């Protein structure tokens, strides 16, 4: 019998139903992956939590106009244009930075992709690490809030690298927060782990001029117009090759690092490629490689220069890594909206910035040979935020900070936007989704991850691994697939 995409989806759905927690089944990419056009998957997490009310509901104005337009996309919020973001007047007068974002797209991205408006983050704590872990593994979890906490089930990075035998530079996790999400690129699953982990980088920590400034040993800089020489790291490919050659002489005489110490190590070839990427940025005498003004998103400083926010720097460098390495798997965690814990207005103005970043990413994909027409992009909140204000920094519009983690409907009602050649454009809010153990009756966060894995041919492996751990696997979101 021919193995069609439909029959695969049905098979994956049966496996994902969790009816039988059989032995781990490892499948190859062959068959399933060939049924889809996407050759790579990018998952962007609007981390820190984004409520349905402010995003799709646009209750405080159209906060993400390039992705979602300006007409509310969920019921209960009217059907008129939402208008500008409602920043409190006293905040706008004294604290609001000069946000720079391009004019919204004439046709919002959701009209070109599949928008599922009623996704449920159904289980697990609505916290950063738990939500982030869910988005990379498709496993609801309650891992510890520690920087070294790993996911119980194999991640997308591990599934891909183990089955496709690709280098670590073929699977990237790029996150705004240095350190915090770094452990999520590998699981503690005994058959996976660090040897199959992806590369991880936090551009806000790494990609800053502070490295060449400190390494230069200079303690002052004279600005002399066009003659100004900014501190850089001088290097050449020939010297890097020489260093590697000589270091190999020494390494050949010393014991290797143990392979079972739980520490991720890239291969020599991976590190060579990453060092080349870093060196090109740190050797740029204009500093434009850290963040070019023409990126067009950020905060305008008093000197008229555009500065990157954490999310902007993260997305800009994610795009550079994407263009340099053309990875098969990339997960990007934005997190500036998490300012909402203490500052509701910052939460609001961070959303158009995240929106512009995601739009820029999609434009980059569409304008890059090797990415266009073969990249699937999935965008979704890491989780939501609680329904009730926490009273911090109240503004004149009666709003204050919002936390997440309590687990109410505000925390758990999210959405998903899927763009790419395999998705059927439309707005979806299906109900009656059935699965043993599923009480939501809706598509869930784990389904988005299962769908991403399925596009790459790893759906069955993800389902069987999760079932083997007595965890409920996600379902493939068949409704949205073309």
């Amino acid at each position, binding site marked *: 019998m021919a193995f069609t995409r439909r029959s695969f989806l049905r098979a994956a759905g049966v496996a994902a139903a969790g009816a039988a927690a059989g032995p781990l089944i490892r499948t190859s990419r062959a068959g399933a992956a060939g049924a889809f056009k996407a050759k790579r998957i990018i998952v962007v997490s609007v981390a820190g939590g984004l409520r349905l009310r402010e995003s799709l509901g646009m209750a405080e104005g159209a906060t993400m106009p390039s992705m979602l337009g300006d007409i509310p996309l969920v019921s209960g919020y009217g059907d008129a244009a939402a208008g500008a973001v409602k920043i409190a007047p006293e905040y706008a007068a004294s604290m609001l930075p000069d946000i720079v974002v391009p004019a919204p797209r004439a046709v919002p991205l959701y009209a070109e992709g599949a928008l599922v408006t009623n996704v449920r983050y159904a289980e697990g704590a609505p916290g950063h690490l738990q939500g982030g872990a869910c988005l990379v593994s498709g496993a609801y979890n309650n891992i510890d809030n520690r920087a070294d906490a790993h996911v119980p089930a194999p991640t997308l990075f591990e599934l891909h690298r183990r089955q496709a035998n690709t280098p670590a530079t073929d699977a990237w996790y790029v996150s705004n927060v*240095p350190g915090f999400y770094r452990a999520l690129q590998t699981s503690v699953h005994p058959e996976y782990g660090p040897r199959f982990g992806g590369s991880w980088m936090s551009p806000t920590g790494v990609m800053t001029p502070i490295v060449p400034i400190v*390494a230069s040993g200079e303690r002052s*800089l004279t600005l002399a117009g066009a003659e100004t020489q900014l501190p850089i790291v001088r290097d050449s490919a020939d010297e890097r090759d020489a260093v590697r050659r000589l270091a190999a002489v*020494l390494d050949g005489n010393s014991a290797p690092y143990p392979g079972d110490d739980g520490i991720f190590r*890239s291969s020599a070839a991976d590190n060579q490629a990453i060092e080349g990427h870093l060196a090109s940025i740190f050797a740029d005498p204009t500093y434009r490689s850290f963040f070019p003004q023409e990126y067009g998103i950020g905060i305008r400083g008093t000197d008229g220069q555009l500065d990157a926010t954490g999310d902007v720097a993260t997305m800009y460098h994610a795009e550079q890594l994407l263009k340099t390495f053309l990875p098969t798997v990339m997960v990007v965690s934005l997190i500036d909206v998490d300012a909402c814990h203490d500052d509701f207005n910052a939460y609001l103005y961070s959303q158009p910035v995240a929106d512009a970043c995601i739009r820029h990413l999609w434009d980059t994909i569409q304008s890059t040979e090797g990415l266009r027409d073969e990249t699937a992009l999935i965008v979704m909140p890491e989780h939501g935020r609680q329904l009730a204000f926490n009273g911090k920094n109240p503004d004149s519009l009666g709003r204050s900070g919002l936390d997440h983690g309590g687990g109410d409907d505000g925390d758990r009602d999210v959405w998903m936007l899927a763009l790419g050649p395999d998705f059927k454009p439309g707005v979806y809010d299906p109900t009656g989704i059935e699965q043993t153990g599923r009480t939501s009756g809706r598509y869930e966060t784990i389904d988005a991850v299962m769908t991403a894995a399925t596009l790459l041919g790893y759906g069955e492996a993800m389902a069987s691994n999760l079932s083997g751990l007595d965890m409920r696997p996600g379902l493939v979101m068949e409704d949205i697939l073309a």
Partner: protein
Amino acid sequence: MASLSSRLARTSMFAAALAVLLPACGDGAYQFQEVTVGGEGDARAPVARSNSQFVRAIYSDLLGRAPESYDFVVLDAQGNELSRFAVDEQRFLVSALDGINDTDPLRAVIAAGLTSSPEAGLPDKSEVSDPEAFVTDQFHRFLGRDPGTWELAAFVADWKSSDAVNPRTVVRALIASREYQSQ
């Protein structure tokens, strides 16, 4: 002088002890436990230096000082101060290194920067008249040992055959080595 009776008593005690111990020794030769002493290739598995340890080590070994904190001053063409910001060498570099999961590539970039700094004081290749002595000195400085015969030969051969091998690349290679990067 011990009396005869006391000597007899000790003798009888010794005989009694022998009577107890001899059967316990068995009637065969003592069987020694086999001891594993390891092979020549069984060196201790290295443990990587933490980012903090690496930064302190490279400052100490290359610059001869600990990382410092200072104000970085920005001046105009006339020498007037425009601005200043605080630099904490240790904290800034460790923070950067904490932003990548395998730090080897960024450690290499930092080493490239520091070895180029005037403070490192590395000579130009043309200033080194005796490459063997230079390489040996750098082994002492960074690894605390003599180079092996084969190591020295390999370094010097590459020094002579490649323009890219110079004092800076020699030091960068030593810093990049697993021996230097581990404890």
